[in-house]
């Protein structure tokens, strides 16, 4: 009887390799979704500051527009907007958002927390 035989090893290897491959596949998908959501929030901030450009617009117009865009293109539970503010800074309007992008494997990877910003010069 050989004690160092490899019988059955290929099966174990197959199962382990498949499990790791699927895990990696899900992590890659998570990364892609996170990148989409980051782009969506950036786009929302751009839309927000554009809504705040007219001389008659207020910071609230910017924030409302940005929230609307986030809801419309990145709604659901995978992105959480902790804070979204629009403030006037001289002749500019600046939108800032603190967001958390949920991890699909919280035990392996924490949520991705980001602070994003957009700004534009206001009409005079």
């Amino acid at each position, binding site marked *: 009887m050989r004690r160092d035989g*490899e019988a059955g*090893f*290929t099966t174990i*290897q197959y199962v382990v*390799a498949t499990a790791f491959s699927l895990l*990696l596949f899900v992590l*890659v998908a998570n*990364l*892609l979704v996170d*990148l*989409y959501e980051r*782009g969506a929030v*950036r*786009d929302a*901030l*751009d839309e927000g500051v554009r809504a705040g450009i007219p001389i008659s617009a207020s910071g609230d117009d910017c924030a409302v527009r940005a929230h609307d865009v986030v809801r419309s293109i990145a709604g659901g539970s995978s992105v959480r907007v902790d804070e979204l503010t629009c403030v006037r800074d001289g002749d500019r309007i600046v939108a800032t958002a603190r967001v958390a992008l949920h991890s699909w494997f919280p035990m392996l990877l924490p949520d991705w927390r980001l602070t*994003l*910003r*957009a*700004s*534009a*010069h206001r*009409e*005079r």
Partner: protein
Amino acid sequence: MRGARADGFVAIEWVAAIALLLLPIVVLVATMPEWAERKHAATVAAREAARDLVENWPNGNPAAAVLVAQEVAADHGVDAADVVVRVPSVGESRGSDVVVDVEITMPALGVGRMAVGSWHYTARASRRIDDFRSR
């Protein structure tokens, strides 16, 4: 002597699978979204720079438009060193166009801050000076 032993094959297969399948996929997945993000950043930067020039016409300052474009690019996570802004036209007269080109450096292959090779994408924005705009 056996000519078809499989000793060590599992280890070799594992290394080859990672090198030939896994790494290329990871690098591609990390690189291609950045192309889309940077393309979008260039488009928005060119648009905002052109809007700044139109807003300040006829005293629009190309240097200020460059700063606007760089600031927008920075908001999108792109370093100023990766952005080249050109202003082919500041809008010489009413009815003419303000034209801004923003050339952005794209990593050919990149994961995070590591990048190998590069190519360039140019976004162009043009805005018309209103025909009845007062000076």
